[in-house]
C-alpha cells in the first residue's frame, strides 16, 4: 500500500466528514420561539461514520474496487437482440406490437401509472430533441429547458388571451421555439464546448427570469392556470362543457363521466406525438442533414474543407432540437393545466442532459430507456424522497464508471453497397 493512496483516502474521508457534519450533522430548528442548532441523533451519527468508513476504504482500495467494477458483466443489449437479418424482418411486427401494447395498456392500469407514463413520454420527447443538439451535432447545450418553456408559454398565453385550441397551438409552439433556437444559434456559432455551455446556460436563465418578471403578460411567479385541455375533434373531457353548446366526450358517446378518460386521452396524445418525433428524427438521422450534424461533431475543419456550410448545419441542429422541445412544452402546458417559471429551472435542463448521456449520445433507443429510468426511479423511491437528489447523483456516478458510453450506445447504420 503506497502512501499516496493513504493520503488520498484520509483526504476524501476528511472531506466527507466536513460535508456530512454540515449537511446532516447539524440542523436549525425552532425551540418554542427561538432558533436552535440541534445535533443529529445517535443513529444518524452512526450512519455518517459508516459512510465515511466506506469512503475511506474505497479510496484506500481503489484499484481493487476498480477491478471489481470491471468484473461486473456489462449487459450487452446488442447481443440480446436477434441477428441483423432476422431483426430486419421482425422489426415492423415488433414496432406494431409495441404500439398496440402502448395503446391498450392504459385501460388496464391505475390512473397514477398512466399519468406517470405521460410524464415519461414528455421526457422522451425532450431527450430526443436535445439529442439532436448534443448527441448528434456535439454542441453542449445547458439551457435546453428554455425552448421547453417557450413552447409551454406559447400555448398557455394563446389559449388564455385568444382562446386558441391545443391542436392549433401545437405547430405554433414548435415554430416559436424553433425561432428562439435559431436566434440563440447566431451568437454561439463560433463557440464550442465549455464556452457554448456557459452561453446556453445563461440563455436558459434569461428566459426563466423574463417569464418570472414580465408579470403583466405571464403572471410572473404565479404562473398561468386554467389552461384548456386538448379536445378530441371539439369534444371536451370535462364533466360539463365549458363553452355554450359544446359537447363533452361522455355525453357524445352516451357514457358515464369518468375522470380517467381525460388522463388516458392525454396519454394517447403523448404516444402519438412521441411516435411522430421518433419517426421524423429517425429519418433526419439517415438524411444528409443528419450525417452533416455528426460530421460537424467529429471534425468541423474537415467539414468546411468539403464544402459544408457549418453555419447552416449548426443553426439547423439548434432549430430542429428546439422545435421538438416546443412540442413537448405545448403538450406539457396542456397536461398540467397550470405552468409557472418554477417548472423550467436549470435542474430540468440537467435532467434532460442526463437522459441523453445516460442513454448513450446519439442513440434514440438509449434515450427512451434512460427517460423511462429517470422518471420511474424517483417514483419508486418515494420513501427516500428527501434523498432523491443524492440517489440521482449516485446513479450518475455509478453509470459513468460502469458504462460511460451509455445504456445503448449508438449503432452505425449498415449501408448496403452494390458490389461492382
Amino acid at each position, binding site marked *: 500500500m503506497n502512501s499516496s493512496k493513504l493520503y488520498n483516502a484520509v483526504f476524501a474521508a476528511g472531506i466527507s466528514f466536513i460535508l456530512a457534519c454540515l449537511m446532516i450533522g447539524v440542523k436549525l430548528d425552532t425551540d418554542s420561539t427561538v432558533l436552535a442548532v440541534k445535533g443529529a441523533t445517535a443513529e444518524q451519527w452512526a450512519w455518517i461514520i459508516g459512510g465515511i468508513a466506506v469512503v475511506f476504504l474505497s479510496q484506500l482500495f481503489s484499484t481493487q474496487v476498480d477491478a471489481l467494477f470491471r468484473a461486473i458483466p456489462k449487459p450487452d443489449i446488442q447481443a440480446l437482440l436477434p441477428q441483423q437479418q432476422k431483426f430486419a424482418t421482425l422489426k415492423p411486427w415488433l414496432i406494431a406490437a409495441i404500439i398496440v401494447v402502448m395503446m391498450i395498456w392504459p385501460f388496464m392500469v391505475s390512473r397514477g401509472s398512466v399519468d406517470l407514463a405521460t410524464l415519461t413520454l414528455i421526457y422522451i420527447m425532450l431527450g430526443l430533441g436535445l439529442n439532436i443538439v448534443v448527441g448528434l451535432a456535439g454542441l453542449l447545450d445547458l439551457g435546453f429547458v428554455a425552448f421547453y418553456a417557450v413552447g409551454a408559454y406559447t400555448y398557455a398565453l394563446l389559449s388564455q388571451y385568444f382562446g386558441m385550441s391545443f391542436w392549433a397551438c401545437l405547430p405554433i409552439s414548435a415554430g416559436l421555439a424553433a425561432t428562439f433556437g435559431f436566434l440563440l444559434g447566431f451568437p454561439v456559432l463560433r463557440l464550442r464546448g465549455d464556452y457554448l455551455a456557459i452561453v446556453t446556460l445563461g440563455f436558459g436563465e434569461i428566459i426563466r427570469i423574463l417569464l418570472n418578471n414580465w408579470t403583466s403578460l405571464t403572471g410572473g411567479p404565479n404562473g398561468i392556470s386554467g389552461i384548456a385541455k386538448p379536445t378530441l375533434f371539439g369534444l371536451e373531457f370535462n364533466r360539463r362543457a365549458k363553452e355554450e353548446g359544446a359537447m363533452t366526450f361522455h355525453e357524445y358517446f352516451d357514457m358515464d363521466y369518468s375522470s380517467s378518460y381525460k388522463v388516458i386521452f392525454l396519454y394517447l396524445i403523448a404516444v402519438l406525438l412521441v411516435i411522430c418525433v421518433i419517426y421524423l428524427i429517425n429519418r433526419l438521422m439517415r438524411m*444528409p442533414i443528419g450525417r452533416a450534424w455528426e*460530421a460537424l461533431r*467529429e471534425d468541423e*475543419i474537415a467539414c468546411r*474543407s*468539403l*464544402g459544408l456550410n457549418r453555419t447552416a448545419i449548426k443553426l439547423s441542429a439548434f432549430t430542429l432540437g428546439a422545435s421538438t422541445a416546443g412540442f413537448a412544452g405545448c403538450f406539457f402546458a396542456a397536461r398540467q393545466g397550470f405552468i409557472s417559471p418554477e417548472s423550467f429551472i436549470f435542474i430540468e435542463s440537467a435532467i434532460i442532459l442526463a437522459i441523453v448521456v445516460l442513454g448513450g449520445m446519439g442513440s434514440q433507443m438509449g434515450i427512451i430507456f434512460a427517460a423511462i429510468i429517470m422518471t420511474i426511479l424517483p417514483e419508486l423511491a418515494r420513501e427516500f424522497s428527501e434523498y432523491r437528489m443524492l440517489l440521482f447523483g449516485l446513479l450518475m456516478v455509478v453509470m459513468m464508471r460502469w458504462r460511460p458510453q451509455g445504456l445503448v450506445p449508438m449503432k*452505425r447504420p449498415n449501408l448496403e453497397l452494390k458490389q*461492382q
Partner: protein
Amino acid sequence: MSQLLLDVNGLTMRFGGLVAVNGVNLKVKNRQIVSVIGPNGAGKTTVFNCLSGFYIPTEGSVMLKNEQIAGLKDYQISRKGLVRTFQHVRLFQKMTVIENMLVAQHRHLNTNLFSGLLKTPNYRRLEKDAMEHAAHWLKEVGLLEYANREAGNLAYGQQRRLEIARCMVTQPELLMLDEPAAGLNPNETKELDELIIKLRDEHEISILLIEHDMSLVMGISDHIYVIAQGTPLANGTAEQIKGNPDVIKAYLGEE
C-alpha cells in the same frame, strides 16, 4: 495547350509581426502535378490554408480559373472545385467509411428537407447515385471492402487513402495534398505515387502537393516550387531544382 487553372501572385500572410508567407507565386496548369517543398516551418501549410480559405491572405491574389477566390469562405472555395487534405488526417472518426464519403457529397444530396422526409423518388435516385459514386472511389483506393467500418479503426495508410477518396467524390478540379506520404511505408508510398499519377492522367485533375519525401516529389512533379522561411527560393522542373545550389544550401543549412 493546357491552360492556367490556379494563378497565385504575391501571396503574403502575416500573423502579428511574423511573416509566415512572403510574396509567394504559384501557377498550376490543367492536368499538372505541382509540388511545393521547403524545410520545416517554411510556410507551406500556411500557403494551403490561404488558398483553401482557412486564412484570409494579408496580401496577394488567388485566381482559380480566372476568378478571384482570395477572401471567399472556405466552403465556397471548395465548392468551386478546390479541395484539400490535411497534414494530420482529418476523418469523421466515429462514422463509417461510406458515411464519410456521403458527407462529402452533402451538397449534391441535400436538396430539400421534405423530399428526404418523404423519400420521394427523386431523393432515392440522388441517394443511389451518391452511393454508387462513393463505391466507385472506394474501389479506386482499395477500400471498398471496408465500407461499413468505422473510419477511425482503419490502418493509418488506409485513413490517408480514404481522405483522398473523400476529396475526390466532391469532383474537384484541383486537389491539394498536404504531406500525403508522411507516415507511410515504402510500399504504401509507391501506391500513393501511382494513385496521384492516375488522378492526373485518367481523371484529368491537377494536383498541388506538399511533400518532404524527395524521391516521390522528384519522380512525379511536373513543376516544383521551393519555399524557405516563407519566401520563394526557386522553381522549375525536378532536374533544375536538383542542381540548384540555393536549394541545396537551404536544405543542408537546416540540417
